[in-house]
Protein backbone atom coordinates (compact mmCIF):
# COMPACT_ATOMS: atom_id res chain seq x y z
CA UNK A 1 0.00 0.00 0.00
CA UNK A 2 2.83 2.33 0.81
CA UNK A 3 4.18 1.88 -2.70
CA UNK A 4 1.36 4.00 -3.96
CA UNK A 5 1.88 7.70 -4.08
CA UNK A 6 -0.59 9.93 -2.41
CA UNK A 7 -1.29 13.58 -2.94
CA UNK A 8 -0.11 14.19 0.56
CA UNK A 9 3.35 12.89 -0.14
CA UNK A 10 3.93 14.38 -3.56
CA UNK A 11 3.95 17.59 -5.49
CA UNK A 12 5.99 19.71 -3.13
CA UNK A 13 8.55 21.90 -4.75
CA UNK A 14 11.03 20.69 -2.16
CA UNK A 15 11.26 16.99 -2.93
CA UNK A 16 12.92 16.14 0.37
CA UNK A 17 9.70 17.29 2.02
CA UNK A 18 7.80 14.72 -0.03
CA UNK A 19 10.23 12.05 1.12
CA UNK A 20 9.79 12.98 4.77
CA UNK A 21 6.03 12.91 4.54
CA UNK A 22 6.24 9.60 2.70
CA UNK A 23 8.34 8.20 5.51
CA UNK A 24 5.79 9.41 8.05
CA UNK A 25 2.99 7.76 6.15
CA UNK A 26 4.92 4.50 5.84
CA UNK A 27 5.62 4.63 9.52
CA UNK A 28 1.91 4.96 10.28
CA UNK A 29 1.09 1.98 8.09
CA UNK A 30 3.82 -0.21 9.51
CA UNK A 31 2.91 0.69 13.04
CA UNK A 32 -0.79 0.14 12.30
CA UNK A 33 -0.05 -3.26 10.80
CA UNK A 34 2.06 -4.23 13.77
CA UNK A 35 -0.51 -3.11 16.34
CA UNK A 36 -3.34 -4.88 14.53
CA UNK A 37 -1.24 -8.03 14.53
CA UNK A 38 -0.41 -7.53 18.24
CA UNK A 39 -4.11 -7.42 19.08
CA UNK A 40 -4.79 -10.54 17.07
CA UNK A 41 -1.86 -12.37 18.64
CA UNK A 42 -2.78 -11.31 22.17
CA UNK A 43 -6.38 -12.35 21.83
CA UNK A 44 -5.35 -15.63 20.20
CA UNK A 45 -2.87 -16.23 23.01
CA UNK A 46 -5.68 -15.60 25.47
CA UNK A 47 -8.21 -17.84 23.80
CA UNK A 48 -5.77 -20.58 22.84
CA UNK A 49 -3.65 -20.33 25.97
CA UNK A 50 -0.48 -20.03 23.92
CA UNK A 51 2.43 -19.06 26.12
CA UNK A 52 4.77 -18.45 23.23
CA UNK A 53 2.44 -15.95 21.66
CA UNK A 54 2.10 -14.05 24.88
CA UNK A 55 5.86 -13.69 24.90
CA UNK A 56 5.90 -12.55 21.29
CA UNK A 57 3.33 -9.86 22.02
CA UNK A 58 5.18 -8.60 25.09
CA UNK A 59 8.46 -8.52 23.20
CA UNK A 60 7.06 -6.73 20.17
CA UNK A 61 5.52 -4.03 22.35
CA UNK A 62 9.01 -2.50 22.33
CA UNK A 63 8.83 -2.22 18.53
CA UNK A 64 5.53 -0.40 18.83
CA UNK A 65 7.13 2.07 21.22
CA UNK A 66 10.03 2.56 18.87
CA UNK A 67 7.62 3.42 16.06
CA UNK A 68 5.95 5.89 18.38
CA UNK A 69 9.23 7.59 19.17
CA UNK A 70 10.40 7.62 15.59
CA UNK A 71 7.14 9.12 14.42
CA UNK A 72 7.34 11.79 17.10
CA UNK A 73 10.87 12.75 16.08
CA UNK A 74 9.96 12.84 12.43
CA UNK A 75 6.97 15.04 13.08
CA UNK A 76 9.02 17.44 15.18
CA UNK A 77 11.59 17.59 12.44
CA UNK A 78 9.06 18.30 9.73
CA UNK A 79 7.33 20.95 11.82
CA UNK A 80 10.60 22.72 12.51
CA UNK A 81 11.97 22.49 9.00
CA UNK A 82 8.95 22.80 6.73
CA UNK A 83 6.34 24.70 8.68
CA UNK A 84 3.58 22.66 7.10
CA UNK A 85 0.37 24.40 6.22
CA UNK A 86 -3.11 23.46 5.11
CA UNK A 87 -3.66 19.84 4.20
CA UNK A 88 -0.09 18.90 5.14
CA UNK A 89 -0.52 20.40 8.57
CA UNK A 90 -3.81 18.64 9.15
CA UNK A 91 -2.45 15.33 7.95
CA UNK A 92 0.61 15.60 10.15
CA UNK A 93 -1.54 16.51 13.14
CA UNK A 94 -3.85 13.58 12.42
CA UNK A 95 -1.00 11.14 11.98
CA UNK A 96 0.62 12.33 15.21
CA UNK A 97 -2.59 11.74 17.09
CA UNK A 98 -3.18 8.44 15.33
CA UNK A 99 0.28 7.26 16.31
CA UNK A 100 -0.51 8.06 19.93
CA UNK A 101 -3.76 6.12 19.66
CA UNK A 102 -1.94 3.21 18.06
CA UNK A 103 0.60 3.23 20.82
CA UNK A 104 -2.20 3.03 23.39
CA UNK A 105 -3.72 0.15 21.44
CA UNK A 106 -0.34 -1.53 21.62
CA UNK A 107 -0.39 -1.09 25.38
CA UNK A 108 -3.83 -2.63 25.55
CA UNK A 109 -2.62 -5.60 23.51
CA UNK A 110 0.27 -6.06 25.90
CA UNK A 111 -2.11 -5.89 28.82
CA UNK A 112 -4.20 -8.69 27.25
CA UNK A 113 -1.07 -10.74 26.60
CA UNK A 114 0.01 -10.43 30.23
CA UNK A 115 -3.36 -11.60 31.48
CA UNK A 116 -3.24 -14.43 28.96
CA UNK A 117 0.13 -15.45 30.34
CA UNK A 118 -1.30 -15.49 33.86
CA UNK A 119 -4.30 -17.51 32.73
CA UNK A 120 -2.43 -20.11 30.66
CA UNK A 121 -2.70 -22.78 33.35
CA UNK A 122 -6.31 -22.10 34.25
CA UNK A 123 -8.83 -24.41 32.67
CA UNK A 124 -12.29 -23.72 34.00
CA UNK A 125 -15.34 -23.88 31.78
CA UNK A 126 -16.38 -20.33 32.38
CA UNK A 127 -13.25 -19.13 30.77
CA UNK A 128 -13.78 -21.29 27.75
CA UNK A 129 -17.18 -19.72 27.31
CA UNK A 130 -15.92 -16.25 27.67
CA UNK A 131 -12.87 -16.77 25.47
CA UNK A 132 -15.20 -17.21 22.56
CA UNK A 133 -16.75 -13.82 23.28
CA UNK A 134 -13.28 -12.31 23.73
CA UNK A 135 -12.17 -13.90 20.44
CA UNK A 136 -15.01 -12.36 18.47
CA UNK A 137 -14.50 -9.00 20.20
CA UNK A 138 -10.80 -9.20 19.46
CA UNK A 139 -11.39 -9.89 15.78
CA UNK A 140 -13.85 -7.07 15.62
CA UNK A 141 -11.49 -4.59 17.37
CA UNK A 142 -8.54 -5.56 15.18
CA UNK A 143 -10.67 -5.21 12.06
CA UNK A 144 -11.93 -1.85 13.23
CA UNK A 145 -8.44 -0.58 13.85
CA UNK A 146 -7.27 -1.89 10.50
CA UNK A 147 -9.98 -0.17 8.56
CA UNK A 148 -9.51 3.04 10.56
CA UNK A 149 -5.80 3.16 9.71
CA UNK A 150 -6.56 2.35 6.10
CA UNK A 151 -9.18 5.05 5.97
CA UNK A 152 -6.64 7.46 7.39
CA UNK A 153 -4.03 6.46 4.86
CA UNK A 154 -6.45 6.75 2.02
CA UNK A 155 -8.14 9.83 3.47
CA UNK A 156 -11.36 7.97 2.80
CA UNK A 157 -14.07 9.66 4.75
CA UNK A 158 -16.83 7.13 4.07
CA UNK A 159 -14.69 4.23 5.10
CA UNK A 160 -13.72 6.14 8.21
CA UNK A 161 -17.31 6.87 9.15
CA UNK A 162 -18.23 3.22 8.63
CA UNK A 163 -15.38 2.23 10.91
CA UNK A 164 -16.41 4.75 13.55
CA UNK A 165 -19.97 3.54 13.43
CA UNK A 166 -18.90 -0.11 13.58
CA UNK A 167 -17.53 0.67 17.03
CA UNK A 168 -21.14 0.56 18.25
CA UNK A 169 -21.18 -3.17 17.56
CA UNK A 170 -18.06 -3.65 19.60
CA UNK A 171 -19.65 -1.69 22.44
CA UNK A 172 -22.75 -3.87 22.24
CA UNK A 173 -20.68 -7.05 22.41
CA UNK A 174 -18.77 -5.61 25.32
CA UNK A 175 -22.01 -4.96 27.22
CA UNK A 176 -23.29 -8.43 26.46
CA UNK A 177 -20.05 -10.03 27.62
CA UNK A 178 -20.13 -7.95 30.79
CA UNK A 179 -23.69 -9.02 31.52
CA UNK A 180 -22.69 -12.65 31.00
CA UNK A 181 -19.82 -12.28 33.44
CA UNK A 182 -22.18 -10.74 35.98
CA UNK A 183 -24.58 -13.64 35.55
CA UNK A 184 -21.80 -16.19 35.93
CA UNK A 185 -20.52 -14.45 39.03
CA UNK A 186 -23.95 -14.53 40.65
CA UNK A 187 -24.15 -18.28 40.10
CA UNK A 188 -20.55 -18.91 41.09
CA UNK A 189 -18.92 -16.18 43.20
CA UNK A 190 -15.66 -18.12 43.45
CA UNK A 191 -14.89 -17.14 39.89
CA UNK A 192 -14.31 -13.59 40.99
CA UNK A 193 -10.57 -13.60 40.30
CA UNK A 194 -10.94 -15.01 36.80
CA UNK A 195 -13.85 -12.72 36.09
CA UNK A 196 -11.82 -9.65 37.07
CA UNK A 197 -9.11 -10.58 34.57
CA UNK A 198 -11.73 -11.20 31.92
CA UNK A 199 -13.28 -7.82 32.50
CA UNK A 200 -9.89 -6.25 32.00
CA UNK A 201 -9.47 -8.07 28.67
CA UNK A 202 -12.81 -7.09 27.22
CA UNK A 203 -12.42 -3.57 28.59
CA UNK A 204 -9.06 -3.37 26.78
CA UNK A 205 -10.70 -4.50 23.54
CA UNK A 206 -13.44 -1.96 24.03
CA UNK A 207 -10.78 0.75 24.51
CA UNK A 208 -9.05 -0.34 21.30
CA UNK A 209 -12.35 0.18 19.57
CA UNK A 210 -12.51 3.71 20.97
CA UNK A 211 -9.01 4.43 19.73
CA UNK A 212 -9.94 3.11 16.32
CA UNK A 213 -12.95 5.38 16.35
CA UNK A 214 -10.70 8.33 17.20
CA UNK A 215 -8.40 7.50 14.30
CA UNK A 216 -11.42 7.31 12.02
CA UNK A 217 -12.50 10.74 13.19
CA UNK A 218 -9.10 12.20 12.32
CA UNK A 219 -9.88 11.33 8.73
CA UNK A 220 -12.72 13.80 8.87
CA UNK A 221 -10.26 16.36 10.21
CA UNK A 222 -7.87 15.71 7.34
CA UNK A 223 -10.47 15.95 4.65
CA UNK A 224 -12.75 18.61 6.10
CA UNK A 225 -10.52 20.42 8.50
CA UNK A 226 -13.22 19.91 11.13
CA UNK A 227 -12.44 18.62 14.55
CA UNK A 228 -15.09 15.92 15.19
CA UNK A 229 -13.37 14.20 18.08
CA UNK A 230 -16.12 15.17 20.45
CA UNK A 231 -19.01 14.82 18.07
CA UNK A 232 -21.26 11.84 18.69
CA UNK A 233 -20.54 9.15 16.18
CA UNK A 234 -24.20 8.98 15.23
CA UNK A 235 -24.09 12.69 14.39
CA UNK A 236 -21.01 12.32 12.19
CA UNK A 237 -23.06 12.01 9.02
CA UNK A 238 -24.81 15.29 9.58
CA UNK A 239 -21.58 16.97 10.52
CA UNK A 240 -20.00 16.23 7.19
Amino acid at each position, binding site marked *: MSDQKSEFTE*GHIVRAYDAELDRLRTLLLEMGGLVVDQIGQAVDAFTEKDRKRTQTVVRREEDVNRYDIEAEELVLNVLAKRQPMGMDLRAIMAITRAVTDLERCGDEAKKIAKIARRRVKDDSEVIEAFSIAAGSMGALAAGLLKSAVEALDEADEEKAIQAAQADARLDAEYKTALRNIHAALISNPSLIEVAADLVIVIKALERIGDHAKNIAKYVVFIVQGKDVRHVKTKALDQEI
Partner: protein
Amino acid sequence: MEAATMSRDKKARSEQSAQAATRKTASSLFGTDRSSDVPDSTVGVITHDDPVFTCRSVDVFYANKQAIFGVDLDIGRHEVISMIGPSGCGKSTFLRCLNRMNDTIAIARVTGRIELDGQDILDSRIDVVPLRARVGMVFQKPNPFPKSIYENVAYGPRIHGLARDRVELDEIVHTSLERAGLLKEVKDRMDQPGTGLSGGQQQRLCIARAIAVSPEVILMDEPCSALDPIATARIEDLIDELKENYTICIVTHSMQQAARVSQRTAYFHLGYLVEVDETDKIFTNPSHKLTEDYITGRFG
Protein backbone atom coordinates in the same frame (compact mmCIF):
# COMPACT_ATOMS: atom_id res chain seq x y z
CA MET B 1 -26.43 34.23 22.02
CA GLU B 2 -24.35 36.37 19.76
CA ALA B 3 -21.66 33.74 19.61
CA ALA B 4 -24.24 31.25 18.52
CA THR B 5 -25.41 33.35 15.61
CA MET B 6 -21.87 33.98 14.65
CA SER B 7 -21.02 30.35 14.55
CA ARG B 8 -24.13 29.76 12.50
CA ASP B 9 -22.99 32.51 10.18
CA LYS B 10 -19.64 30.91 9.90
CA LYS B 11 -21.25 27.63 9.15
CA ALA B 12 -23.33 29.20 6.44
CA ARG B 13 -20.24 30.83 4.99
CA SER B 14 -18.23 27.70 4.99
CA GLU B 15 -21.12 25.88 3.34
CA GLN B 16 -21.10 28.53 0.68
CA SER B 17 -17.41 28.15 0.21
CA ALA B 18 -17.67 24.43 0.12
CA GLN B 19 -20.21 24.74 -2.65
CA ALA B 20 -18.14 27.28 -4.51
CA ALA B 21 -15.15 25.06 -4.39
CA THR B 22 -15.65 21.87 -6.21
CA ARG B 23 -16.98 19.37 -3.73
CA LYS B 24 -14.24 17.48 -2.04
CA THR B 25 -14.43 13.80 -2.60
CA ALA B 26 -12.17 11.14 -1.30
CA SER B 27 -10.53 9.58 -4.26
CA SER B 28 -6.80 9.44 -3.93
CA LEU B 29 -4.76 8.80 -0.84
CA PHE B 30 -4.90 11.83 1.41
CA GLY B 31 -5.83 13.64 -1.69
CA THR B 32 -8.79 15.63 -2.63
CA ASP B 33 -9.92 15.90 -6.14
CA ARG B 34 -10.48 19.57 -6.57
CA SER B 35 -10.40 21.69 -9.65
CA SER B 36 -7.16 23.56 -10.15
CA ASP B 37 -8.78 26.20 -12.31
CA VAL B 38 -9.43 29.68 -11.11
CA PRO B 39 -12.96 29.74 -9.67
CA ASP B 40 -15.76 31.74 -11.28
CA SER B 41 -16.17 33.76 -8.15
CA THR B 42 -13.96 34.19 -5.15
CA VAL B 43 -14.15 31.38 -2.62
CA GLY B 44 -14.62 32.24 1.03
CA VAL B 45 -15.96 35.41 2.57
CA ILE B 46 -15.31 38.60 0.70
CA THR B 47 -17.57 40.75 2.84
CA HIS B 48 -16.91 42.39 6.17
CA ASP B 49 -19.36 43.78 8.73
CA ASP B 50 -17.58 47.10 9.04
CA PRO B 51 -15.72 47.72 5.82
CA VAL B 52 -13.30 50.58 5.21
CA PHE B 53 -12.76 49.59 1.63
CA THR B 54 -15.39 48.01 -0.54
CA CYS B 55 -13.95 46.85 -3.83
CA ARG B 56 -16.21 45.51 -6.53
CA SER B 57 -15.20 44.06 -9.90
CA VAL B 58 -11.87 45.81 -9.93
CA ASP B 59 -9.99 45.28 -13.17
CA VAL B 60 -6.49 46.59 -13.82
CA PHE B 61 -4.95 46.82 -17.24
CA TYR B 62 -1.38 47.57 -18.17
CA ALA B 63 -1.76 48.87 -21.69
CA ASN B 64 -3.74 46.05 -23.28
CA LYS B 65 -2.71 43.38 -20.83
CA GLN B 66 -5.13 42.71 -18.02
CA ALA B 67 -3.37 42.28 -14.70
CA ILE B 68 -6.33 41.97 -12.35
CA PHE B 69 -9.66 40.35 -13.11
CA GLY B 70 -12.81 41.42 -11.32
CA VAL B 71 -11.65 41.47 -7.73
CA ASP B 72 -14.41 41.80 -5.12
CA LEU B 73 -13.17 42.38 -1.61
CA ASP B 74 -14.10 44.19 1.57
CA ILE B 75 -11.40 45.37 3.90
CA GLY B 76 -12.60 45.75 7.45
CA ARG B 77 -11.89 48.53 9.90
CA HIS B 78 -8.91 47.91 12.14
CA GLU B 79 -8.17 44.54 10.70
CA VAL B 80 -4.95 43.26 9.27
CA ILE B 81 -5.57 41.67 5.93
CA SER B 82 -2.73 39.98 4.12
CA MET B 83 -2.49 39.31 0.43
CA ILE B 84 -0.49 36.34 -0.68
CA GLY B 85 0.19 34.61 -3.94
CA PRO B 86 2.97 33.76 -6.33
CA SER B 87 4.96 36.49 -8.05
CA GLY B 88 3.03 38.34 -10.70
CA CYS B 89 -0.33 37.34 -9.27
CA GLY B 90 -1.46 40.94 -8.97
CA LYS B 91 -1.44 41.30 -5.20
CA SER B 92 0.84 44.34 -5.27
CA THR B 93 -1.04 45.80 -8.19
CA PHE B 94 -4.27 45.46 -6.27
CA LEU B 95 -2.72 47.01 -3.19
CA ARG B 96 -1.58 49.97 -5.24
CA CYS B 97 -5.13 50.52 -6.45
CA LEU B 98 -6.19 51.29 -2.91
CA ASN B 99 -4.35 54.59 -2.80
CA ARG B 100 -4.21 55.02 -6.55
CA MET B 101 -0.48 54.62 -6.72
CA ASN B 102 -1.14 52.99 -10.07
CA ASP B 103 -1.82 56.49 -11.35
CA THR B 104 1.93 56.97 -11.42
CA ILE B 105 2.20 54.32 -14.11
CA ALA B 106 1.09 55.92 -17.32
CA ILE B 107 -0.14 52.76 -19.00
CA ALA B 108 -2.07 51.45 -15.99
CA ARG B 109 -5.86 51.66 -16.08
CA VAL B 110 -8.15 50.69 -13.23
CA THR B 111 -11.87 50.05 -13.64
CA GLY B 112 -14.59 48.95 -11.28
CA ARG B 113 -15.48 50.45 -7.92
CA ILE B 114 -13.30 50.93 -4.88
CA GLU B 115 -15.19 52.68 -2.13
CA LEU B 116 -13.41 54.17 0.81
CA ASP B 117 -16.06 54.82 3.44
CA GLY B 118 -18.67 54.87 0.74
CA GLN B 119 -16.84 57.18 -1.64
CA ASP B 120 -15.61 55.82 -4.96
CA ILE B 121 -11.91 56.61 -5.05
CA LEU B 122 -11.54 55.58 -8.67
CA ASP B 123 -13.63 58.57 -9.63
CA SER B 124 -11.37 60.83 -11.66
CA ARG B 125 -12.67 63.82 -9.73
CA ILE B 126 -11.21 62.47 -6.50
CA ASP B 127 -8.02 64.25 -5.54
CA VAL B 128 -5.32 61.70 -4.88
CA VAL B 129 -3.43 63.96 -2.48
CA PRO B 130 -5.94 63.76 0.42
CA LEU B 131 -6.63 60.14 -0.53
CA ARG B 132 -3.00 59.24 -0.01
CA ALA B 133 -3.02 61.10 3.26
CA ARG B 134 -5.86 58.83 4.35
CA VAL B 135 -4.31 55.71 2.89
CA GLY B 136 -0.60 55.63 3.68
CA MET B 137 1.89 53.30 2.14
CA VAL B 138 5.04 51.47 3.20
CA PHE B 139 7.17 50.00 0.44
CA GLN B 140 9.19 46.88 -0.10
CA LYS B 141 12.57 48.56 0.17
CA PRO B 142 12.92 50.95 3.09
CA ASN B 143 12.95 54.30 1.34
CA PRO B 144 13.50 57.10 3.82
CA PHE B 145 14.17 60.46 2.25
CA PRO B 146 17.86 61.32 2.34
CA LYS B 147 17.11 63.88 5.02
CA SER B 148 17.22 63.89 8.79
CA ILE B 149 15.09 61.49 10.80
CA TYR B 150 13.02 64.42 12.03
CA GLU B 151 12.47 65.78 8.53
CA ASN B 152 11.44 62.36 7.29
CA VAL B 153 8.60 62.16 9.75
CA ALA B 154 7.76 65.86 9.62
CA TYR B 155 7.44 65.90 5.85
CA GLY B 156 3.90 64.57 5.63
CA PRO B 157 2.41 66.80 8.35
CA ARG B 158 4.23 69.73 6.79
CA ILE B 159 2.89 69.33 3.24
CA HIS B 160 -0.59 68.65 4.53
CA GLY B 161 -0.43 71.52 7.01
CA LEU B 162 -1.28 69.34 9.99
CA ALA B 163 0.78 71.29 12.51
CA ARG B 164 0.17 74.91 13.36
CA ASP B 165 3.60 75.54 14.81
CA ARG B 166 6.90 73.93 15.57
CA VAL B 167 5.75 72.65 18.95
CA GLU B 168 2.85 70.79 17.40
CA LEU B 169 5.06 69.39 14.68
CA ASP B 170 7.55 68.20 17.29
CA GLU B 171 4.73 66.45 19.06
CA ILE B 172 3.50 64.74 15.92
CA VAL B 173 7.02 63.59 15.08
CA HIS B 174 7.54 62.23 18.57
CA THR B 175 4.23 60.39 18.77
CA SER B 176 4.71 58.91 15.34
CA LEU B 177 8.19 57.66 16.17
CA GLU B 178 6.92 56.37 19.48
CA ARG B 179 4.10 54.47 17.82
CA ALA B 180 6.53 53.05 15.31
CA GLY B 181 8.64 51.86 18.24
CA LEU B 182 11.60 53.85 17.05
CA LEU B 183 11.67 56.82 19.41
CA LYS B 184 13.92 55.22 21.98
CA GLU B 185 16.50 54.31 19.38
CA VAL B 186 16.64 57.66 17.59
CA LYS B 187 15.77 60.14 20.34
CA ASP B 188 19.29 61.49 20.52
CA ARG B 189 19.95 61.68 16.81
CA MET B 190 16.87 63.19 15.26
CA ASP B 191 18.98 65.46 13.07
CA GLN B 192 21.00 62.65 11.58
CA PRO B 193 20.13 61.30 8.16
CA GLY B 194 17.44 58.65 8.08
CA THR B 195 19.46 56.71 5.55
CA GLY B 196 22.09 56.07 8.21
CA LEU B 197 19.79 53.79 10.18
CA SER B 198 19.78 50.04 9.87
CA GLY B 199 17.38 48.45 7.39
CA GLY B 200 14.84 47.53 10.03
CA GLN B 201 15.02 50.95 11.64
CA GLN B 202 14.64 52.56 8.23
CA GLN B 203 11.50 50.57 7.62
CA ARG B 204 10.09 51.57 11.00
CA LEU B 205 10.99 55.15 10.13
CA CYS B 206 8.96 54.74 6.96
CA ILE B 207 6.07 53.45 9.04
CA ALA B 208 6.45 56.41 11.41
CA ARG B 209 6.44 58.69 8.40
CA ALA B 210 3.26 57.07 7.13
CA ILE B 211 1.41 57.31 10.43
CA ALA B 212 2.52 60.91 10.99
CA VAL B 213 -0.33 62.06 8.73
CA SER B 214 -2.85 59.98 10.75
CA PRO B 215 -4.06 57.74 7.94
CA GLU B 216 -6.97 55.34 8.30
CA VAL B 217 -5.34 52.62 6.29
CA ILE B 218 -1.70 51.66 5.93
CA LEU B 219 -0.77 49.68 2.86
CA MET B 220 2.38 47.62 3.19
CA ASP B 221 3.98 46.17 0.11
CA GLU B 222 6.25 43.35 1.27
CA PRO B 223 7.58 45.50 4.10
CA CYS B 224 9.94 42.85 5.45
CA SER B 225 11.33 41.30 2.32
CA ALA B 226 14.56 43.29 2.62
CA LEU B 227 14.97 42.75 6.36
CA ASP B 228 16.61 40.16 8.55
CA PRO B 229 14.47 37.94 10.80
CA ILE B 230 14.93 40.03 13.94
CA ALA B 231 13.99 43.26 12.19
CA THR B 232 11.10 41.38 10.60
CA ALA B 233 9.90 40.26 14.02
CA ARG B 234 9.99 43.87 15.23
CA ILE B 235 7.90 45.01 12.29
CA GLU B 236 5.43 42.20 12.86
CA ASP B 237 5.15 43.14 16.51
CA LEU B 238 4.59 46.72 15.42
CA ILE B 239 1.85 45.70 12.99
CA ASP B 240 0.16 43.86 15.83
CA GLU B 241 0.17 47.05 17.89
CA LEU B 242 -0.87 49.31 15.05
CA LYS B 243 -3.97 47.29 14.25
CA GLU B 244 -5.64 48.82 17.30
CA ASN B 245 -5.82 52.13 15.47
CA TYR B 246 -5.28 51.44 11.81
CA THR B 247 -6.45 49.18 9.08
CA ILE B 248 -3.47 47.42 7.61
CA CYS B 249 -3.25 45.72 4.23
CA ILE B 250 -0.05 43.81 3.83
CA VAL B 251 1.29 42.08 0.77
CA THR B 252 3.79 39.43 1.67
CA HIS B 253 5.69 36.58 0.15
CA SER B 254 6.07 34.91 3.48
CA MET B 255 3.08 32.73 4.25
CA GLN B 256 4.26 32.38 7.81
CA GLN B 257 4.22 36.14 8.12
CA ALA B 258 0.70 36.36 6.72
CA ALA B 259 -0.34 33.65 9.14
CA ARG B 260 1.25 35.47 12.05
CA VAL B 261 0.11 39.02 11.53
CA SER B 262 -3.22 38.99 9.76
CA GLN B 263 -6.79 38.22 10.66
CA ARG B 264 -7.85 37.68 7.09
CA THR B 265 -5.91 36.44 4.15
CA ALA B 266 -6.57 36.84 0.46
CA TYR B 267 -5.00 34.51 -2.04
CA PHE B 268 -4.36 35.91 -5.53
CA HIS B 269 -3.59 33.80 -8.53
CA LEU B 270 -2.82 35.10 -12.04
CA GLY B 271 -4.77 38.27 -11.37
CA TYR B 272 -7.76 36.55 -9.81
CA LEU B 273 -8.71 36.71 -6.19
CA VAL B 274 -9.11 32.99 -5.60
CA GLU B 275 -9.95 32.82 -1.93
CA VAL B 276 -10.42 35.14 1.01
CA ASP B 277 -11.09 33.94 4.51
CA GLU B 278 -10.06 34.03 8.11
CA THR B 279 -6.31 33.55 8.20
CA ASP B 280 -6.69 30.53 10.48
CA LYS B 281 -8.89 28.86 7.96
CA ILE B 282 -6.73 29.73 4.96
CA PHE B 283 -3.66 28.23 6.49
CA THR B 284 -5.16 25.14 8.05
CA ASN B 285 -8.03 24.35 5.80
CA PRO B 286 -8.26 26.37 2.62
CA SER B 287 -11.23 25.65 0.42
CA HIS B 288 -9.70 25.98 -2.99
CA LYS B 289 -7.18 23.65 -4.50
CA LEU B 290 -5.00 26.53 -5.77
CA THR B 291 -4.79 28.03 -2.30
CA GLU B 292 -4.00 24.64 -0.84
CA ASP B 293 -1.26 24.02 -3.40
CA TYR B 294 0.26 27.43 -2.81
CA ILE B 295 0.32 27.36 0.98
CA THR B 296 1.60 23.78 1.14
CA GLY B 297 4.44 24.58 -1.21
CA ARG B 298 3.20 22.58 -4.15
CA PHE B 299 2.88 25.41 -6.57
CA GLY B 300 4.09 25.10 -10.13
